[in-house]
């Protein structure tokens, strides 16, 4: 006998009722959805809508890209208003070219005559006028009729003669417009071209910027790399303190180096001299201070000497960077003045120099910050290894309190700067005390010899920030940047770039998390440090997915850059939106066509590259 299967679904009235209710609920949801989204097919059927739809569709089908130069040629035919005694005989027209006839050749004022034209350009049109007086070139014209030629180049218009009786012969003038020469690009087409170039470069810059910054971020957002990063509390506190201190000191120091280079700012030969000299000096210094391989530990004096040389080398390198910036600015200015149509190259150099000049102190600050932080961190690490537990506890309490207070104090300063609260209880003393207490509590609850999982903290913080920023649409970011840096492609680059950074960092870090652990282990086992492990075991493994994600992002950025202009972010979107608002649909159509072509061809190119390299 077969046993009853317990898993078999039994049908019951309750179940059917449930299904029925679910269907009903679904119906209600969709009905509500229809109402909310105002779905109304009546709208489509209304006469007015259909008319404008047809008009717009026709305009869209004729993108404003080409135009002919047009010439207007006037043809005249004699006519008598009031028939003269001889019956108003007129000369037969010259029928070798286009010609116009009037029948009858004489009539009373207010009577209708038929104006016919032959041998004109087919499907062209132009005004038909009455020219009073005996001179066919007379500028006075009467009437308001239009002649349109048929496919054979002929037309016939009935016009009413004006009340201008005269004994002399008078004229009917037909002015026909005719296309001459080859088709030319319209102004719209040229504007569209300029803007589409801007669009593509906007996407290019955003993708490049985003990729460069997303790569390092992706490493600290990867769990497998961060999980093993642990350090003692003293070390963490000291490296936390090292960052702001180092950034401040480095910024000031490098800015000071910048002022040293200012006296030679305008002198191109001096610029060149330093740009050539400093890399040589720097590399010599580096070679001496950082020997390629060392089997034994150097003694103290050598170590200190090396540190000094390294320090001077770095300052020299920064001096060289400033000189490079001056050089780029100077040469750029020359280029702008003298290169004519290639002046954009000069401008590029100028902007590049400007960027270097602005970012060098920031770079110096960050470099010093990271150096000081890692130095202090290592000192803390060493102290925690050597000292007795009670001493470590003391250090922990001291530095953790200090670090907590500093961190919260900086945060308070930021809040003050943003909201201008102006009450030091909330933005200075409060944060300082809370931060200090928090540090103290952490120091008290950690056992002196314990290490904390710094890596995972950094990991979670980075992930949270990335996820938060990623959920902000690029268009919204563009609005913010338009406010910050003004309308134009720069705002677009910043917005798309930022969005690229956060979304690529996420995708990249997932790739890092899925690499094979074996090679990583093998490289670690050779005694490689963390950075070496990343360079030799991680990077080779992630090159193909990184390339393919970067291309995928490039596709998205091209698409986005075409519409980021809607909110003022530069690119072709701006033109498109303007023309739509001005009801200039033929121009809008040209821009849509350009977008379609660019998107399609970029899509094609990137899929081709992907096939080739991935």
């Amino acid at each position, binding site marked *: 006998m077969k046993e009853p299967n317990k898993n078999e679904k039994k049908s019951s009235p309750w179940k059917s009722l449930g299904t029925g209710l679910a269907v009903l609920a679904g119906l209600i949801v969709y009905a509500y959805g229809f109402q909310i989204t105002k779905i109304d097919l009546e709208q489509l059927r209304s006469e007015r809508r259909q008319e404008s739809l047809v008009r717009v569709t026709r305009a869209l089908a004729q993108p404003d890209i080409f135009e002919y130069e047009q010439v207007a040629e006037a043809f005249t035919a004699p006519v008598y208003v009031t028939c003269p005694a001889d019956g108003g005989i007129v000369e037969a027209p010259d029928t070798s070219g286009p010609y116009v006839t009037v029948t009858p050749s004489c009539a009373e004022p207010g009577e209708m005559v038929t104006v016919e034209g032959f041998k004109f350009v087919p499907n062209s049109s132009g005004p038909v006028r009455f020219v009073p007086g005996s001179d066919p070139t007379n500028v006075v014209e009467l009437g308001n009729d239009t002649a349109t030629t048929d496919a054979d180049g002929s037309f016939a218009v009935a016009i009413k003669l004006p009340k201008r009786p005269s004994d002399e012969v008078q004229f009917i003038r037909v002015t026909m417009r005719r296309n001459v020469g080859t088709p030319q690009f319209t102004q719209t087409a040229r504007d569209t071209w300029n803007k589409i170039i801007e669009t593509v470069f906007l996407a290019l810059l955003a993708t490049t910027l985003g990729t460069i910054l997303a790569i390092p971020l992706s490493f600290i957002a990867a769990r497998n790399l961060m999980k093993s990063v642990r350090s003692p509390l003293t070390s963490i506190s000291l490296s936390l303190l090292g960052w702001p201190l180092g950034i401040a000191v480095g910024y000031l120091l490098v800015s000071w180096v910048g002022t040293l280079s200012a006296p030679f700012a305008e002198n191109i030969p001096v610029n060149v001299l330093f740009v050539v000299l400093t890399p040589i000096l720097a590399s010599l210094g580096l070679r001496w201070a950082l020997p*390629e391989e060392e089997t034994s530990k150097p003694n103290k004096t050598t170590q200190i000497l090396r540190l000094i040389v390294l320090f001077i080398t770095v300052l020299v390198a920064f001096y060289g960077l400033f000189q490079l910036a001056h050089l780029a600015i100077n040469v750029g200015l020359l280029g702008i003045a003298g290169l004519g149509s290639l002046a954009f190259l000069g401008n590029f150099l100028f902007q590049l120099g400007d960027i270097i000049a602005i970012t060098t102190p920031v770079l110096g600050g960050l470099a010093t910050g990271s150096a000081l932080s890692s130095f202090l961190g290592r000192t803390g690490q060493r102290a925690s*290894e050597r000292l007795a537990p009670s001493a470590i506890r003391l250090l922990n309490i001291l530095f953790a309190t200090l670090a907590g207070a500093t961190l919260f104090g900086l945060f308070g300063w930021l809040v003050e700067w943003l909201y201008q609260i102006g009450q030091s209880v909330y933005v200075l003393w409060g944060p300082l005390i809370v931060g200090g207490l928090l540090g103290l509590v952490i120091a008290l609850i950690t056992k002196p010899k314990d290490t904390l999982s710094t890596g995972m903290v950094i990991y979670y913080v980075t992930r949270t920030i990335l996820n938060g920023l990623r959920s902000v649409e690029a268009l919204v970011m563009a609005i913010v940047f338009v406010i910050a840096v003004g309308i134009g492609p720069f705002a677009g680059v910043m917005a798309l770039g930022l969005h690229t950074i956060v979304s690529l960092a996420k995708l990249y870090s997932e790739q890092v998390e899925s690499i094979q652990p074996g*090679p990583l282990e093998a490289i670690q086992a050779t005694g*490689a440090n963390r950075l070496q492990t990343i360079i030799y075991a991680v990077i080779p493994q992630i090159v193909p997915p990184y390339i393919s994600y970067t291309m995928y992002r490039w596709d998205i950025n091209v698409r986005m850059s075409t519409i980021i202009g809607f909110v003022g972010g530069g690119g072709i979107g701006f033109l498109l939106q303007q023309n739509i608002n001005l009801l200039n649909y033929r121009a809008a159509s040209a821009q849509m066509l350009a977008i379609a072509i660019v998107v399609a061809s970029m899509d094609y190119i990137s899929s081709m590259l992907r096939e080739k390299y991935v």
Partner: protein
Amino acid sequence: MLQVKNLTKIYDGGVKALNNVTFDAPKGQFLAVIGLSGSGKSTLLRCINRLIDPTEGQILWNGEDITAANPEEMRRIRRKIGMVFQHFNLVHRSKVLTNVLAGRLGYVNPAWSLLNRFPKEDMAKALQQLERVGIADKANQRADELSGGQQQRVGIARALMQDPEIILADEPVASLDPVLAHSIMKHLEEINKKDGVTVLCSLHFLDLVHRYADRVIALNEGKLVFEGLPSEIDDKKFKDIYGRDAERVG
């Protein structure tokens, strides 16, 4: 001289992979580690170069306690400990030469190696090691273009680049066919006998143990169940190591 004292490893999930293991590996010895899969061989080898942090116990290396070393000291200790893996663990997309040079990462200045710059002597040495394992002609190929046996030779060359005093080999021939297995084992034997490098090698097949090992230790569920000469493994010992149902084939 490597001394392992009361080593215990409990993984995060609660698995006790090593249970109070104690043994010595004198300098220059070829010491085999045997045991069923899951008995803790890989865990033991990885504890020695601290790819895994042991839970308890000590590992003394020429008198220095590896378990207490800080990251910087660890880097210095690790570069004297070569490691060879069952799945070779080469970086597939890198060149063979780069894979071999990676063995020098513990010695070179990190700043220069980040730019993929190695001293000339290291380049020469890398080619020499490839020569030694017989695949010098493959230096500029990508690592994943090589066969399994060739990849393991690259793995050995990488370990040799470290000028190791000891080589940890974690089932180095388990993914290779028997003929290749012997040629790889012979390389390890030569390194052991000629250069005097201590070899700590986990193995699957007893015939390889008999053929190459000076001494054997055996693990069963994380416990050391045997320590002695290969020839001392009789039927009773065999059953202790591999369990009651095991049949002797090798």
